[in-house]
């Protein structure tokens, strides 16, 4: 498949991921354009996190294929192009905020000066500049989350895979997060984000509703509302997920 140059950052077809008998992702097709903010929505267990991990190259596929920026997985070269923020904190609690950021910067061969410059901007953005030299273990849950996001951003990758980046972040800061995400988008970089917050989903360029490991609907937020004739995304989502079950009951 010719992925590069066709404008897609993520191109996945028929993705399947099984854990024993359990199928976490069940034939997922996903296309994310370059420079797009794509939101994956769905309840717990819908397969959002598994999808993100597949795109990071962390999981071996049970079926289907995925291309990132034109390269077919698995290909370790995609690692340099991805900024991954896992759902769990995934930081070194015994290191300071600075040391965590520096570590992830050093992995991507950033110079000391580059790290310091970017760190300054990032700490402003996550609103923790005065916590630079504090141990991450001493920060609150929300603060850790923000540091974790900064760690995913430090090497300025063209694709960001963010698994629930705004959990535990207060509404005001969440707004500034989205301003930042839009800035990234304006630079032509791509973001795939999973979230529970429907108000947030409305800020994405496109949304995919996930349910039982499948994509049940996809489109711009406005389109989805129109399609379902609903007032908000929550109801729109409900109307999609309810459908197959109704069919089953019949």
């Amino acid at each position, binding site marked *: 498949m010719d992925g590069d140059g066709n404008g897609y950052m993520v191109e996945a077809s028929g993705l399947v991921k099984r854990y024993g008998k359990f199928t976490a992702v069940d034939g997922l097709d996903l296309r994310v354009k370059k420079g797009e903010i794509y939101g994956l929505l769905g309840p717990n267990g819908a397969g959002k996190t598994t999808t993100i991990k597949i795109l990071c190259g962390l999981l071996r596929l049970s079926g289907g294929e995925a291309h990132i920026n034109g390269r077919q997985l698995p290909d*370790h070269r995609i690692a340099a192009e991805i900024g991954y923020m896992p759902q769990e904190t*995934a930081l*070194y609690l015994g290191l*300071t905020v600075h040391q965590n950021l520096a*570590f992830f910067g050093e*992995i991507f061969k950033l110079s000391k000066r580059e790290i310091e410059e970017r760190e300054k901007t990032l700490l402003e953005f996550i609103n923790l500049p005065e916590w630079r030299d504090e141990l991450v273990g001493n920060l609150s849950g929300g603060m850790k989350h923000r540091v974790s996001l900064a760690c995913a951003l430090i090497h300025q990758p063209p694709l960001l895979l963010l698994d629930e980046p705004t959990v535990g972040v207060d509404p005001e800061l969440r707004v500034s997060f989205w301003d930042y995400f839009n800035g990234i988008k304006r630079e032509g970089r791509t973001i795939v984000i999973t979230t529970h917050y429907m108000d947030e989903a409305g800020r994405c360029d496109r949304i995919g509703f996930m349910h039982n490991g499948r994509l049940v609907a996809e489109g711009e937020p406005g389109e989805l509302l129109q399609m379902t004739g609903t007032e908000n995304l929550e109801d729109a989502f409900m109307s999609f997920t309810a459908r197959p079950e109704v069919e089953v009951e019949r």
Partner: protein
Amino acid sequence: MRKPHFLTVTKRVFRDLKNDKRSLALIVIAPIFIMFVFGLAFGGGVKNVKVLVVNQDQGGAPVGAGSISLSEKIISNLDTEVLKLEYVDDRDAALAMVENGDAYAAIIFPPDFTSEAVSSMNDLPGGSTATIEFQLDKSNINVANAITKAVNDALLATIDQVGVQMPVSVDTVAVFGADVKFMDFFVPGIMAFAVYMITTLLTLVTFVGERTSGTLQRMLATTLNERDIVLGYAATFSLIGMGQAMLLLLVGTLVFDITVVGNVFLAFLVIALLAVVSQALGILLSSTAKREAQAIQVLPFVVLPAFLLSGIFWPIEAIPAWLRPLSYLVPPTYAVDASRAIMLKGYGIGKIWIDIVALLAMAAIFLTLAVLSLSTRKD
């Protein structure tokens, strides 16, 4: 040349340890603590054991000499550092004390001890061998052996003093270690044991943390691969292991006055190699634990075999033959053997290469398995 990628991990692990006072204390203080505890407890040998002496000997007169008492001579030759002698008149009272555990042994000289001995030495008719009655509590082997040795030594010394020639004699020459003290022998062993135990424990716990906190997956989602991570840890812990070995040697020299005849840097290299094996083992074992608490459960299986089978306290030859193959599966065995040969006998690499090859092979195997154990997380 570009800096190897794994050094990023090495640097981070060092930073982590530097920030963590507890781990730092474990690395620095624990080996010294282990050396002191074992060194002081084992190093002194058996001392001040209460032994009763019942001397009923009435003496005797060898031909052409005045009256002497052989029993007194023997008693005076007993090593009073090992034995704390207490004189009792009555044989039955002495036996009762041994039976009650008030003393470890009773040495009883019968009334005709000297005269029997004298007639026996002079081949007089009717003479029989003079016998010392030696009532010994053998329930504590170490103490019993020490007492027996003290009594035998005293007998030999006395025989020598009274001018009786033994028909055969043994001339012992120390090929190595003429002045070896217990600590000289012990420090190389404890170096290997402490480095093995602390390295395995520390990587095990740290790595369970990497797995559970999600940092391992996060690293694997970057340009770091499994090999970089394992090598990064290996580099860290080989350096730490060497540092610990130096520290132990320093304390051993300053406090316990140990003597080292060989090239200590060769010994440090052996210990560093052991640390690489140990950290790989720690990473490997971490895959069996889902939580940090579960990591503790594998500890007895890490510590005890090494403690008992690797030749730190007693030679592998003292381990039952059927169990001995297990000794050769325990990594510290080779490091103990090699560092002892280097430090006590002054052996060079030409004579310990088998140990080095064994450690290198173990390192290769465990490092590979450790890398594979991380890869399988990508299922």
